[in-house]
């Protein structure tokens, strides 16, 4: 069962991506094809016909870094991990300084990093710490089909 904070973090993480994208469609706990890779947040840019962004959220930095290998195998141009600021241990702090685990071995692209912050009034916010870089996959057809078949949690079209 997911940690309540991880669940609450879905919306601020989505808002963080929305600020960087153009009228995206956002899905929580979505099963992204082709291998039904379940992600915490999926944002498809440009009203569901643009680039797909996958986000895995974890309570700690180490937990988020453990999701990176799965993300490196995923089929989307932009991939992100998100974790709560201040949860880094020595190993994860080092990894997030060198950024080495965020890169694939044999292609371009980089997994981005989003920090979730607890603010006054127990509100949550999220900011990009490391920008994601594009992986060389074109999945516009998959994104368009997905957005046509699934009801978004957040969308801007009429």
């Amino acid at each position, binding site marked *: 069962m997911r940690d309540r904070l991880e669940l609450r973090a879905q919306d601020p993480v989505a808002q963080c991506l*929305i*600020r*960087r994208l*153009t*009228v995206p469609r956002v899905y929580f706990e979505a099963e992204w094809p082709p291998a039904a890779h379940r992600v915490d947040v999926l944002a498809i*840019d*440009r*009203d*569901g*016909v*643009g680039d797909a962004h996958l986000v895995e959220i974890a309570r700690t930095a180490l937990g988020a870094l453990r999701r990176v290998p799965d993300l490196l195998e995923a089929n989307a141009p932009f991939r992100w991990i998100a974790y709560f600021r201040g949860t880094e241990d020595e190993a994860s702090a080092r990894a997030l300084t060198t950024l080495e685990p965020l890169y694939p071995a044999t292609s371009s692209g980089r997994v981005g990093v989003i920090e979730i912050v607890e603010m006054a009034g127990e509100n949550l916010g999220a900011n990009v710490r490391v920008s994601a870089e594009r992986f060389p996959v074109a999945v*516009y057809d998959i994104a*368009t089909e997905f957005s046509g078949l699934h009801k978004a949690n957040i*969308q*801007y*079209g*009429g």
Partner: protein
Amino acid sequence: MSVTEPAIVLHYRRRADSFLRAAGDLEVLDRVAHAPAIGLLSVHGCIALSDAVLVALQGPRVFEEDHREAARRLRKWCSAKRSEDAAVKHFEWLVGVKNHFSYDECAVKDEDCWAAKVKANQFFAWCLRTFPAVAQMDEARDA
């Protein structure tokens, strides 16, 4: 649909994105304080996106001060293709309130700003979904 003049289309799309995101950033910062700027950026974002779409469809545009002509051209294309054109009315509304956000003596109300942002988002969503070739242009490939 194939895109004519991809570099020019990308130029206008990039400008449209910039205006809409700036409007969003100002909204987060303080919607009431920045209401006229949010409204005006929403209008100009839609003008830039309509430019992108019309260049993609018809080639380089003749510069027109009257942006209602762009709306007429979008409606004409939709009519010819039997395509849904409901969101064009949002664009027409936005073009109609451009001077209100820019020059009018009366204050811009919060609801005017809110309406401009919502209508801009809806026009963007319609444009990008109706013209996916414009939405899916690649910065690296088409610049």
